[in-house]
């Protein structure tokens, strides 16, 4: 099949654009008479989140917290505040399975750059030591270093949707490399990559409203001193997790979905209770003995994972 054969003519009034942002390709689609200008505004919202919360950019608010937060209180914008606040709620509810202070581990593994002017992390302390003070001020009670990469991409998608939910826009969607949210009548078929063979795309979910975020290690894993490492870190042990596993979380807001994928990776067995407390649903693909097992979690249908299908086995049989 040639690529040209798969091209779909754009619908009337539809604007579809993609730009490189947040370390991935961000695609924004809107339908409506003024779609192009609304899409432009949505991209600006994503750029703003990128600028405020990039760990790489020394001028970001996150970098300022990492440089000065242990020495003095740092005032931040409403956006950074909302992300840190959401991160804290998820850290609290998951007893630290989501933790923005894994940054030094990510830097040591080569997934984040080293900044010479950041304070040396003490190695002691966790999310509890990121204090959110009145007046949108942040203080680091210990010498921890934060990276909001596990939640900010989802937040950027939410921000873009806020801009897209404007008069005259009938439907819209935003996808930032697997963090997706839809608005209006815009049902989306989600194709999930098989962890052991990411060129296989399985259409497993149709999303009609809300958000979905997927995280897996297949495109990020690398070798470090003979070990396979991934940027998905179990905050309790500070060791890479997620080997051979793909996790998709469905939530109303994309930031929640994004952060909770990390909770599921860190502890799939404890995850259902935490997902339920956020009214989230989830899908987990797990490779086992050459087969791929599909687990689903729906809080209205019981407390644990259900092994919905074993496609490999079922289809081989």
């Amino acid at each position, binding site marked *: 099949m040639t*690529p040209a054969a798969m091209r779909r003519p754009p619908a009337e009034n539809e604007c579809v654009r993609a730009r490189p942002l947040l370390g991935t390709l961000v695609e924004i689609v809107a339908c409506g008479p003024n779609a192009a200008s609304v899409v432009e505004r949505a991209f600006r919202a994503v750029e703003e989140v990128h600028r405020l919360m990039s760990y790489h950019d020394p001028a970001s608010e996150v970098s300022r917290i990492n440089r000065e937060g242990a020495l003095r209180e740092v005032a931040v914008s409403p956006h950074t505040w909302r992300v840190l606040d959401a991160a804290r709620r998820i850290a609290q509810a998951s007893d630290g399975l989501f933790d923005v202070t894994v940054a030094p581990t990510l830097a040591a593994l080569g997934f984040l750059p080293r900044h010479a002017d950041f304070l040396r992390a003490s190695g002691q302390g966790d999310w509890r030591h990121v204090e959110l003070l009145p007046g949108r001020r942040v203080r680091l009670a210990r010498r921890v270093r934060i990276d909001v990469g596990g939640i900010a991409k989802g937040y950027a998608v939410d921000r873009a949707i806020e801009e897209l939910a404007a008069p005259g826009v009938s439907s819209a969607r935003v996808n930032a490399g697997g963090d997706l949210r839809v608005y209006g009548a815009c049902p989306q078929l989600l194709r999930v990559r098989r962890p052991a063979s990411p060129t296989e795309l399985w259409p497993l979910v149709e999303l009609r409203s809300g958000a979905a975020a997927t995280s897996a290690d297949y495109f990020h894993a690398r070798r470090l001193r003979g070990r396979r490492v991934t940027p998905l870190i179990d905050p309790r042990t500070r060791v890479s997790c997620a080997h051979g596993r793909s996790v998709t979380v469905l939530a109303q807001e994309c930031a929640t979905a994004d952060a909770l994928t990390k909770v599921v990776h860190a502890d799939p067995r404890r995850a259902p209770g935490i997902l339920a407390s956020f009214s989230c649903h989830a899908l987990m693909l797990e490779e086992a003995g050459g087969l791929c097992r599909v687990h689903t979690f729906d809080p209205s249908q019981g407390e644990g994972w259900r092994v919905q299908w074993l496609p490999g086995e079922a289809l081989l049989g």
Partner: protein
Amino acid sequence: MRHPEYTWLLPALIPAAVIAPAYAVQYLTVEQAQRALFPEAEAFSPVRLTLTAEQRRAIEQRSRVRVRHPELAAWRAATAERALGWFLLDEVLGKHELITYAVALDHTGAVRGIEILDYRETHGAEVRNSRWRAQFVGKRAGAPLSLDEDIANIAGATLSCQHLAEGVRRLLATYEVALR
């Protein structure tokens, strides 16, 4: 708290759906990208030039990125009165994907905007030879899912944008060496 609304797809769908062997999406044609990046321009004059070996070396030295193609696709954007800048068309090849993109430079050589024109993901032989896929040949029950969806629907498609970043760096060096 509001819930997301969704449907798990039935297992029966899976054989029909299996794998997308390749997909592509066109966001913008060259003309549309030119208009998007330089809405006020009245003319785009194409400048086709072939980099000399010396220019290629200079670009590689400045950008620390290999120059694979000596041909440069550039347009000079202008109104009736003044030059606005350059529209540069380029391609980068990632691990699985080929991306056609355009960089707009203003008259000082600063990046004014970047737009993706085409995105193609092609795994070709790898997927065609997959035994797992071979089992389903001829078993595609019901209406096969069309492959005309775009990247929005491929969850976990986080691709490294490193090649794009390198491409932009190479084009900025190309401007310094050959267009300035």
